């Protein structure tokens, strides 16, 4: 089986280890990974800010780069939901592009979704002794309806104990440009998220979205709170022994 990796802009620039981990996990499952080099960004930032014409430019480019791939894997619930839920809507007035957008939308998978629903992942050579909690990001949970999938794959990691996160469905306050435009509200939300993380008793937070990771982690760091944050793929890539 061959899959194309859409690494996403945040992973590419800030968290390349996440991309590497995705490649490692997929390859360990016998999947061939390709990386279309012309890929850029899915266009979510401009879409959510209201600049749909600019977002269309990004979306058209994405479609051109990825439309011949059978499986497109993104280590991000938020980018996958942009492509799956919003691309077809963006091109409502352009029937030809709408059709192409719908085809791409059907082929995009968030990382844990692919592992569970396409690969039917049974076993992993992963070990991660830690008391962790899982932050369910909004686009991943409410947008794509992927709530149990990350927990399912994480349950196959040896030594990993997952503690429930109080008010787990609450947004962390990232929201892309929301965190730039409404910093006070965004920070208030992050602060409450940290409180709940502390209450969970976990010393590691695992998530499927790098936006949330950057936001919660960035706030925790400023507060001098040593919360450790990792993407699901990074935990799965930690080999036994």
């Amino acid at each position, binding site marked *: 089986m061959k899959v194309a990796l859409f690494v996403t802009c945040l992973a590419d620039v*800030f968290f390349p280890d996440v991309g590497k981990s995705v490649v490692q996990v997929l390859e360990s499952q016998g999947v061939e990974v*390709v*990386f279309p080099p012309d890929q850029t960004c899915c266009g979510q930032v401009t879409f959510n*800010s209201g600049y749909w014409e600019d977002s269309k430019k990004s979306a058209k480019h994405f479609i051109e780069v990825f439309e011949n791939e059978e499986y497109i894997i993104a280590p991000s619930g938020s980018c996958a939901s942009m492509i799956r839920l919003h691309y077809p809507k963006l091109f409502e007035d352009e029937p030809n592009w709408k059709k192409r957008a719908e085809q791409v939308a059907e082929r995009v998978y968030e990382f844990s979704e692919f592992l569970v629903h396409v690969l039917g992942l049974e076993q992993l050579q992963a070990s991660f002794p830690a008391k962790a909690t899982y932050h369910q990001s*909004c686009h991943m949970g*409410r947008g794509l309806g992927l709530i149990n999938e990350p927990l399912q794959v994480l349950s196959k990691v040896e030594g990993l104990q997952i503690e429930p996160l109080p008010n787990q469905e609450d947004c962390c306050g990232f929201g892309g440009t929301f965190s730039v435009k409404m910093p006070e*509200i965004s920070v*208030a939300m992050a602060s409450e998220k940290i409180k709940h993380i502390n209450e969970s008793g976990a010393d590691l937070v695992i998530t499927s979205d790098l936006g949330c990771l950057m936001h919660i982690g960035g706030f925790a760091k400023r507060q001098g709170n040593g919360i450790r944050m990792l993407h699901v793929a990074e935990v799965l890539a930690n080999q036994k022994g």
Partner: protein
Amino acid sequence: MSMPNQTFRTRVSEGLQDAYRRNVVGKVQDYFRAMRNNIFEELGNVEEWRERAAQIRSHTIENLDAYLEMFSENIQKNGGHVAFAADAAEANRYIQSVAKQHEVKTVVKSKSMVTEEIHLNGALEDIGVEVFETDLGEFIIQLDNDRPSHIVGPAMHKSKQQVAEIFSKKAGETLPADAQELGRFAREYLRDKFFRADMGITGCNFGVAESGSVVIVSNEGNVEMTSSLPRVHVVVMGMERLVPSWEELDVLISLLPRSATGQRTISYATAIHGPKRENDLDGPEEWHVVIVDNGRSKLLGTKYQQALNCIRCGNCSNVCPVYRHIGGHAYGGVYNGPIGAVITPLMENLPEWKELAFASSLCGACTEACPVKIPLHEYLIELRHDVTETSEDTWSERMVAHLFGTATAHPSLYEMGQKAARLPFLSSAAGPMKAWQENRDLPEPAKQTFRDWWRQHKGGER
């Protein structure tokens, strides 16, 4: 509805600084969340209920003209008067004229956000009429010259101590901060007003088109007194507040209290079918129903039409993390929370209220919680799009968006941009990410991007 004399930023920052309110809103949200989930599960298939409710509302709104006609014809058959008001001024003029005609000195009011929206109290006071709010929350707000902060719990932001102070001023003696005692004071104070009032004014949760009836749900019992004791009863309702028949009402009335307060049912559901009839012992001699447009019809036939499905349960506020931290006053309009952020700009005007659309992280909790399935967070994205299409003062942001769009369509430009992300300017405390970094650390860009790593390690493999 009018914009208070403060900027959105000021209102947000005041909201954030109100520690008492933040605490209480958080607790109420947590309580409602638990209650609502349990109470909803009892219904069985929640999604089916929501779907049915959404269909009822959408069908009614799609055929609103026909149902409004049926509703008003039936009211008249029952001996009531109907008035259609295009805006606040028209509605107020009509109610003033009814008050003058009946030489009204005192009005008691209950359960109406629309009258808040059209500033009816002020209009009545202008012609020398005394107005008394009789819902406990509204009563507190009125005595304190404040504004409601939640659709269902208008005085949610006030503590028992604050209420005791407000009531003590009115009572002319010090009242204890005790719920029983404060309730007793309000009850005694208002009972006198009920008996004295010449006119009662209420809102309307649902108008039943097939019978021309008005249905109001409440927990305090004051709706009954407001609508039956005074000589004249005036109902003020938004034009979208209809259901075709009692069968559909049944579905919506099952969802309203469950969504609003996590109650299985509500203490009172008052159905009013007209003025006092010949052999009735009680009831008003004259019954008026004022159907208010005031910007609602601007939504008809647009992509935002479903916002008119709203049954004013306030559940979107009960789950909204932004509302949780900034409170209801920050929204500026009469309708707060996610539904307020959607309908205030649409019913009034977008440029003046454009910031509301951006006061959301688009987490989707509101859409998930809405019992009539209004796509609230999707509407906020649509509104943002409308803002960029119509607004003229976002030039620098617009340029960044254009540059970004162009760069993402050209991989080499995009990679140049990625390199630029490493420039100290962008991440410096003076750069565009300044606000981000006031309370958060931005991660350092990695020494080697993923694509560079791929080229180096997997080069040639594509």
